[in-house]
């Protein structure tokens, strides 16, 4: 029963945020500040995570393709894996883990200090004033971060394939376009956008329903991160399944 009510609250908030994104005056200042904040806590870890991530994929794919005798496709396979799967997920984990936890803690602290109530009785909707800008910021950062992670991941993969595994630089680059095509990049960015939305809404929802003093805020942050991760992986599965159905792979 509790889980159902919670699900309902998340969806209500998501709908409210989506509606208010179009119907209310945008809070430019708050959005920019939040964007800057989320970007500042996620850029460096994202870059640092994506280098080994790209490397692992390159190494794994490299050895696999060698066993199959399809070495010329190493570049193509690792780019697909990085752009379509690894990059949006790394982005999502960081936006939810670093950005979302900060959003949740901030809103949670405001909630237990009655700042939300105060705002409401001033006739200002906290969802419009605080939640919408944060969700927009999370979405924007996720999209841009996804580009960064893709680039760093591919470069990292290239480096490891060429330097560590003695792959041919030309073959690695030339095979990019053998399997990958532009829709792969689009779906990657769309995924990042949706993940940013989910991470923002889940974190905000836990934050504004925090109760029970400072410990309640800690619990809320914890729950928000776990919940966001679960949702992100599940949604990733659904989007990937739909994408593979709808957009035929190149050369098929």
């Amino acid at each position, binding site marked *: 029963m509790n889980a159902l009510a919670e699900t309902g609250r998340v969806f209500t908030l998501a709908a409210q945020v989506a509606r208010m994104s179009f119907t209310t005056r945008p809070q430019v200042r708050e959005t920019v500040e939040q964007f800057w904040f989320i970007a500042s806590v996620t850029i460096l870890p994202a870059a640092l995570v994506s280098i080994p991530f790209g490397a692992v994929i390159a190494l794994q794919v490299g050895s696999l393709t060698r066993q199959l005798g399809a070495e010329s496709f190493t570049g193509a396979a690792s780019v697909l894996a990085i752009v379509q799967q690894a990059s949006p997920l790394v982005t999502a984990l960081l936006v939810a883990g670093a950005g979302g936890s900060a959003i949740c803690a901030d809103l949670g602290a*405001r909630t237990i200090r009655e700042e939300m*109530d*105060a705002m*409401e*009785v*001033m006739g200002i*909707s906290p969802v419009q004033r605080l939640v919408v800008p944060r969700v927009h910021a999370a979405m924007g950062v996720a999209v841009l971060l996804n580009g960064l992670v893709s680039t760093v991941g591919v470069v990292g993969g290239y480096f490891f394939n060429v330097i560590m595994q003695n792959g041919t630089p030309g073959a690695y680059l030339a095979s990019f376009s053998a399997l990958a095509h532009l829709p792969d990049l689009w779906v990657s960015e769309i995924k990042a956008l949706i993940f940013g939305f989910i991470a923002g809404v889940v974190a905000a929802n836990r934050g504004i329903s925090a109760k029970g003093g400072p410990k309640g805020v800690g619990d809320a942050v914890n729950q928000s991160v776990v919940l966001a991760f679960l949702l992100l992986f599940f949604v990733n599965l659904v989007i990937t399944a739909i994408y593979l159905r709808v957009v035929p792979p190149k050369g098929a």
Partner: protein
Amino acid sequence: MGIEVEADGLTKSFGRHTVWRDVSLTLPAGEISVMLGPSGTGKTVFLKTLVGLVRPERGRVVINGVDIVSCRERQLYRTRRLMGVMFQDGALFGSMNLYDNIAFPLREHTRRNERQIRSIVEEKMAMVGLSGAESKLPGEISGGMRKRAGLARALVLDPEFILCDEPDSGLDPVRTAYLSQLLIDLNAQIDATILIVTHNIQMARTVPDNIGMLYRRQLVTFGPREVLLTSDEPVVAQFLNGRRSGPIGMSEEKDAAATAAEAMTEPDLDDVRGVVPQLTPTPGQPYRQAAARRQERVMRILHQLPPAAQQGILAGRHEVSHERTG
């Protein structure tokens, strides 16, 4: 003039615990009312219900013709612009300094330029005695200052209905007296309806026009101040005197044996019940129109009131008319 606030048949419970049931009262327009009650009787919940932060299971709250329990969200937000709420701990925004906190409603709701905002904010800060503390953060100041800043913020939009949640808690008696006087002066100046939730007896005796009391999940009484101040109800008498002997116990209620034992041990203190003169605006402030309106209203219902309250009202009547001419 302030707006009338009507609560009708309000019932609220959290899970199985009923906070109060069937609370009906009307806060007369422009008058000051106090809601008394021992700790934990849902005074704050009642206040939050009146502003639509807590949704009751049953009943209506009609403010300015809008039932804020059932109205649409847009209408609720519009009605709330008529209200100013002073929260228990001030509820200031921790990330902003006092000036920005108090300017916040003006910046959100009006198109005033920064110079006009500054003059309004400085006026309200002077009113609550916070001049010079503009750049302080809420975390750096005392609880009493936070409260006063919360009051200043509640006042900047010239509300017609002001709600104060325990304005005295955390304040020393002198500051409480100043705050009481401030509320009276405020009422004289802007003629707003004011509801104060408190358990401070001194404030309850001298400030309001009307007093109500919540106890044992219901509204014990609500009416002209003289009614409660002269009431014979054991709960009221115990509360006004701050005694142990009476129906209110440390936790909630207590049994007869404990009551009898306490009556034996407790020293016989002076009974502070009875009508004391109400505060009047400081000289130089405008005449408090609510006093005259209230007198007219009370005289009309005089015959329905208990004799002791009638005496109190008639004795106080002289003062009101005297003040008016003076």
